[in-house]
Structure formats: C-alpha cells, structure tokens
C-alpha cells in the first residue's frame, strides 16, 4: 500500500477543505478532520510493541485511569484513535506521548486488553526515528540487522585512532605529554589527549544531530492540536524548564502510578548513577587543568580517591538499576510492557557499558595484560555506541521528554488539571 503524508487541516481552512469523507475529529471540538490513514505507520506501530492496537473500542477507560493525564484532551484514548486511523502527523506532534511515563496503569485496566501504554511506547520510537538527523542512522539503530554496522563504526574508528595516534597527535600538536602533573599508568594505546579529542569530536557531532532532531520536534509540537485554540503560555520558558528539571530529578511523575511502581526505583538508580558517572567523566576530561584535582593527575584514579569512589558508586547504581530493568522486562512483561528491539537496545547498551567498565577496572587492578586493554577497548566501543547513537536510540527520551514536558509546563498542561465542571 502507498503511504501518504497526513494533512490535518487547521482552523478555517480545514473546514473549507472538508470532503465527503470527512468525519468528526476523534478528540477535539468536533471540527472535521481529513483522515488519510498511513498504513505503513500503523504497521510500524504494530511491529514495535503496539500489536494490540486494533482491539481498542474507544471507551476512554485508559484516559480516565491515567494518573498523568491532564483533564483537557486527556491521553491516551485519543492517541489510540489516531493510531488506529494512522494519523501519523497528529501523533508525531503530540506532546502527550512524552508525558506518559509508561506505567501501564491504563493497560492493566483496559477492558479490551489493549495495551495503550505500549502503543505510546511504539509511537515514541516512531517519533525519535521521524525527527532524527541523519535519518539513516535512525534506521540503523531501529533494526537489529544493522547492529554489526553500528558496532563496526566505533571499533574501526577507535582502532584507527589508536593505530595512527602519533600522526594524529602531531597533527593536533599533542605529541608531548600535557604537563608534568599527568601520569598515565593505564592505557598507553589511548592517551588522554587522544580520547578527549576523539570523544570530544563525536560528542559534538552527536550533540549537533540531537539539537537538529529536538529542534524539528519542538516545531512539530507547536502544531499539536492538544493545546486548544490560541493557547496562552502560563509560564516562561526558563521557569518551565526549572520546574520540569525539579520534577525529573525527584522522579515525581514516575511515582504517581500504581501498576509498575518499581520502575521509579530502577530509573532513579540509573539516572543518578549516570549523573555521577558523567561528573566523573568530566573530571577525567578536564583532569590536567582541573583545580579540584590536587597533585598529579593519575589516571585511573586511585581506588580511594573521592572521584573513584563516586565513579564506583555511580557505576554500581547504574548496574543495580539496569539489572532491575532487565529483570522486570524479562519476568514482568505485563507490567513493564512489551519489549521491542528498541527498548532492549537501550537497556543492554547501558548494561554493557557499565559491565565492561567494571571488567576493565578489575582486570586493571589484577594487572592483567593484555586483558585489561581488550576490555578497555570494548568498553570504549560501547560508550561510543551509547553516546553517539543517543539521538537515534531510546536514550533520546531524555531530550524529547524534557522538551515536551517544558512545553506542557509552559502551557499549563498538568496532570489532573484543566477541565472545569
């Protein structure tokens, strides 16, 4: 079947364009909407966790059961209608799919045993794929058959960097060690400056790609029908960002649900563990110049250095959280939701990053050569995968969620708020 772009006419024009096929809007204000089902989109949703979609009878139980849903244009019933009708454009510009925290309160109570929570998960995946730049990387990340390419890229690039480090160093002017404070006891293959430049370059590229994706997404968001006609912001952007970050840090939205409560715990661990690791990584990168590090910058840090402690605690937190997530997905699928490749890819990547990190650390303490170098190499490959593919993987949720939540905060789209009696 041909796929076609959905045109959702807006305002007066929309009404003028009404054709005999027009049917009342599935959610808002009864204005006619042209439905031009994108069948390929429906199929993609059904393949990636939304297979129960077609059973929905539009009863609204899910929107009423959802602890996070606002009272005007609540979700996820309307998203179910849009998904059923293949209204891709509506879904991809919908902030609500990102307000959903996938607790599955709606799914466990759905009278048709449809799983709206999982359908929204599938829509989120499509959303990331849709906005990601360049699209080809998004395609590779979303399909297991491209996994070898994804792994080969960092392996080859890192290999080349190590092999030609002297040439690169000369080119960059780093051929001499960067000062006497630095003692590298660990990986002569990957000197500090090399890793910094290598990861610096690719992080900047990934960041640029992420910004493009999120920028496209936020433009889409503005077109969404959920804001109602002529929405008035109730808060400034910065104030909204502030309160969203506070909510994210507190895991407020996670803890409101009944069905899958342990998710808040696992996410909490992964989230803060990850932040700890990020802080330590920044310390490592800035090590030679960082006034917080006294004396010689010895990398790796000694076991009792506060940074090493923080790294180990953070790593353990991520490990505990991610194992809990994996365990939930394996044994409590009905709560955690269906698990698509996209979901698995993120949790396993994080697991592999921390697991290979700890393996490297232990092998290093045992002074096992070349094992520790091999482990380090593998670790770096996974770190590359996690960071550089962030804009294309489920990891991008942190950007998309934050964006949608800020917008929702700005327009007063709060859980349990909105409709007057």
């Amino acid at each position, binding site marked *: 079947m041909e796929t076609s772009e959905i045109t959702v006419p807006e305002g007066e024009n929309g009404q003028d364009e009404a054709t005999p096929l027009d049917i009342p809007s599935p959610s808002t204000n009864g204005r006619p909407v042209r439905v031009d089902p994108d069948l390929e989109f429906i199929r993609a949703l059904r393949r990636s966790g939304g297979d129960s979609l077609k059973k929905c009878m539009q*009863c*609204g139980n899910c929107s*009423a059961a959802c602890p996070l849903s606002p*009272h005007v244009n*609540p979700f996820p*019933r309307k998203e179910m209608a849009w998904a059923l009708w293949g209204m891709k454009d509506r879904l991809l510009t919908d902030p609500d799919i990102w307000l959903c925290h996938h607790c599955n309160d709606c799914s466990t109570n759905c009278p048709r045993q449809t799983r709206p929570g999982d359908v929204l998960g599938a829509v989120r995946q499509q959303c990331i794929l849709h906005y990601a730049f360049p699209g080809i990387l998004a395609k590779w990340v979303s399909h297991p058959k491209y996994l070898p390419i994804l792994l080969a890229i960092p392996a080859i690039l890192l290999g080349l960097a190590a092999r030609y480090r002297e040439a690169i160093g000369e080119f960059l002017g780093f051929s001499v060690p960067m000062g006497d404070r630095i003692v590298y006891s660990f990986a002569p293959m990957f000197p500090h400056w090399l890793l910094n430049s290598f990861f610096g370059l690719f992080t900047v590229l990934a960041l640029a790609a992420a910004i493009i994706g999120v920028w496209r997404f936020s433009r889409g968001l503005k077109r969404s029908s959920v804001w109602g006609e002529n929405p008035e912001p109730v808060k400034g952007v910065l104030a909204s960002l502030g309160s969203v970050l506070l909510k994210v840090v507190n895991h407020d939205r996670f803890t409101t649900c009944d069905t899958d409560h342990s998710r808040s715990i696992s996410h909490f661990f992964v989230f803060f563990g990850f932040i700890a690791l990020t802080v330590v990584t920044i310390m490592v990168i800035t090590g030679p110049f960082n006034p917080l590090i006294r004396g010689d910058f010895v990398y790796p840090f000694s076991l009792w250095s506060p940074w090493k402690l923080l790294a180990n605690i953070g790593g353990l937190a991520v490990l505990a959280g991610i194992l809990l997530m994996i365990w939930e997905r394996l044994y409590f699928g009905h709560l955690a939701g269906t698990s698509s490749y996209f979901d698995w890819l993120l949790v396993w990547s994080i697991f592999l990053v921390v697991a290979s990190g700890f393996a490297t650390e232990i092998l290093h303490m045992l002074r096992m050569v070349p094992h520790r170098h091999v482990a380090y190499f593998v670790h770096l490959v996974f770190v590359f995968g996690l960071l550089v593919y962030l804009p294309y993987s489920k990891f991008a949720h942190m950007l998309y969620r934050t964006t949608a939540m800020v917008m929702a905060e700005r327009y007063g789209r709060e859980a349990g708020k909105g*409709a007057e009696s």
Partner: protein
Amino acid sequence: MSPDHKPILVIGGGIAGMTAAVEAAEVGYPVVLVEKEPSLGGRVVRSHRYFPKMCPPTCGFEINTRRIRGNPNIEVHTMATVEEVSGDVGAFRARIKKNPRYVTGDVSIDDSVVEQLTSDRPNEFNMGLDTTKGLYYPHTAAYPPLHVVDKEALSDGDVAVLTEACPPGALDMDMAEEEFTIDVGAVIVATGWKGYDPGNLPNLGFDRCPDVITNLIMERLAAPNGPTGGKILRPSNGEAPTNVAFVQCAGSRDENHLPYCSAVCCMASLKQARYIREAYPDAKVTVFYIDVRTLGRLEKFYYELVEDENITFVKGKVAEINEDPETHELILEVEDTVAGERPDSRFDMVVLATGIVPNTADSPIPLELDYDDYGFLNGATGVEGVFAAGCATHPCDVSRTTKESTAAALKAIQCLNRG
C-alpha cells in the same frame, strides 16, 4: 394428548421456567417444576417495575401463578434441587432433593406470630439489605403462598413462641429433607442468572463507598415491598439522592471480567433513571456509557430520556470511583470521549450496572452439557432431550426469555411424542 406421557422436568422457577411450564401444561403435558428458593419468580419479581412498559412485575407474575395454580398438569417443588439425572431422551430419571420448609400449608399462620420472634436473619429476597425473622413469608407476592422456617436462625425463645402461638398442624418441626426419583421424558434448564460480583471491581469502590450500589440493589430500593418501602435513599445517611450516576458495563464488555455484553443493563439503567426522576423531580442523573445498547423498539425508551433536561448521557467508561473523605461525595474518574475532557464528576449516589452471570457458571446441572466459556448453555444443550431457555442461555430480557421458553416447551413436547 395422552395421559401416559412422561412429564417434562423444568429446572428453575423464574420467568423462563414458569413460562415453559405453563405453555407445556396448558396443551396437556405433565410438568414437574423444580425451584431451589422457597417461592417462584426468580429475578423478575425482585424488580420494581419492568421495561419497556414499566408495569410492576407482580401483575404478569400473578397471571402466571394463576395459570400454574389452576393447572393439574403442573407439579411445583420449591426449596428443591435436582441432584442427579440419568438415562436418555424420552427416559430420563431425575433424583430430586427437597429441603424441609417446616410449614405444612394445611393451616394458615397469622403475621402476629412472626412479630413475636426475636432473632433476625438476612433477607435474600432483598439482597441482604434487611432481615427477616426465623419464620417468614418470602415476599408479598410469594407463590406458593406459604411461610418458611429457617430452623438454624431460630433462637430458643423463638422455638417456644412458635410452639405456643402457631395453630396446631401449621408447623412440623420434625419435617426432614426429602429425596425422590421421577421418570421424565425431557428436561428444560431455566436456572437463570445472578449479578456480577461488584467485589471483583475494586476500582469502582462498591466495598469502599456505601453510596455506591448495584442495579440489583436499586431495584429493591425502588420496590414498595423492598427494604425501604420503595424509597430510593442513600445507604450512608438515609437521605434522598440529588445527583445520581449510572456506571454502565460494570464488569461487562471487559476482557478482565465478563467479555460479553450483558444486554439488559443499559435498559435497566434507563428504567432506573426514570425511577429517580419520578421520585425526585429535581434530582439529576448522569449515565456514563460505552454505547447505549437499546435494540429494536427499545430505542424509543432511550430517546424519551434524552429529552429530559435533568438526565445527561456521557460517552465514557468510568475507570475509578473514590469518596471525598470530607464531603462524602463520590468522585468519578472518567473521560467524556466526545468532548475529549475529564470532567469534574461528583455525585451523591452511584449505581453500578453490573452484568449477568449464568447460575450454571458455578453450579452446573448434573448432566454433561455443552457450556460456553462463561457457563451459558446453548439452546440445544448438546444432550438430546435437554433444552435451555432464558438467561441460562444468554443475557436477555423478559420478552426474549418468554419466547425462548415457549420454544423450549415445544421442543420438549416433540421429544415426548417421538416413538
């Protein structure tokens, strides 16, 4: 018509069983009607009025009891159950167990005797909403028109009162459980239904909030012979409700509960909305539904209510009910799916439109019959000579029930006449 026909055994004395019995008996075939409760009538006599005509069930019921009483072809056994059925079409043997009523029926008992008793027992006719004494009259329209003794419930004082106050021969406290076997040619299963247990729907708060009731309770509250003498009152404080919600499909059309549509609860709620509007002209009613299923001519009943300004229909399934701890109002979580809003929904009384579960789901007939996944019987039960009618076969209203019962009677008669 030949007098040597074996009788038709009808199991269940609700409207389905009574109809099948009189239809067969009135064309000359003998019928044995077995009912487990102390009186006939099943669920229909428990309702206040019945749709679509909104007449009290007692008038139709009285016509049926008159037809039964006057017909020598019908043998009625109440407080009785069928324990075993063996044999084949045309030659079944059924073992019937009859629990003692302790009331002989030979001498009538004056109500003043009942008043002197002290111990109470839950009144199953009123869904346990009130109590009766250990000697009681099942309900005002009871047939057979006899008192019953619940021996377990009697206190020692009550026993003394009974021996003293009852006329001699009225009671037989030594009456024993009775068992007998009869030969029958065909069997009609008309064991009916019960309401879906609202305890299985914890989200809807039946066990948490006193003012959340079921549609079955509503029928009893509205009925003049019910626990409140026909006054619809909030159970929590005995006050008149001013703002009532009906929650449709409470357990029905739900894969986690009853996947099927219970067919009558939309009409039942519309009917009950009328009870409220008639009793309290200022009261407001809101019906929360997935679809209003009023098939065929019943649609008219719905359109009449749509005209009523005080009745609102909201398309949306209620997900949760909680009580406001301060005001004791009931707060409903629901999306108005047409408006795309979750309105602030507060009521002082909520009626759960619970659905229909066949009695055969947990107490099957002692025969190898073909039940569906939910315990309903097909009209043809998979055993030759055994038929089913009424809510034992699927959720349905009285008019449908009586038609099926007549059909079942005809099929049973055909069995009796075959070779």
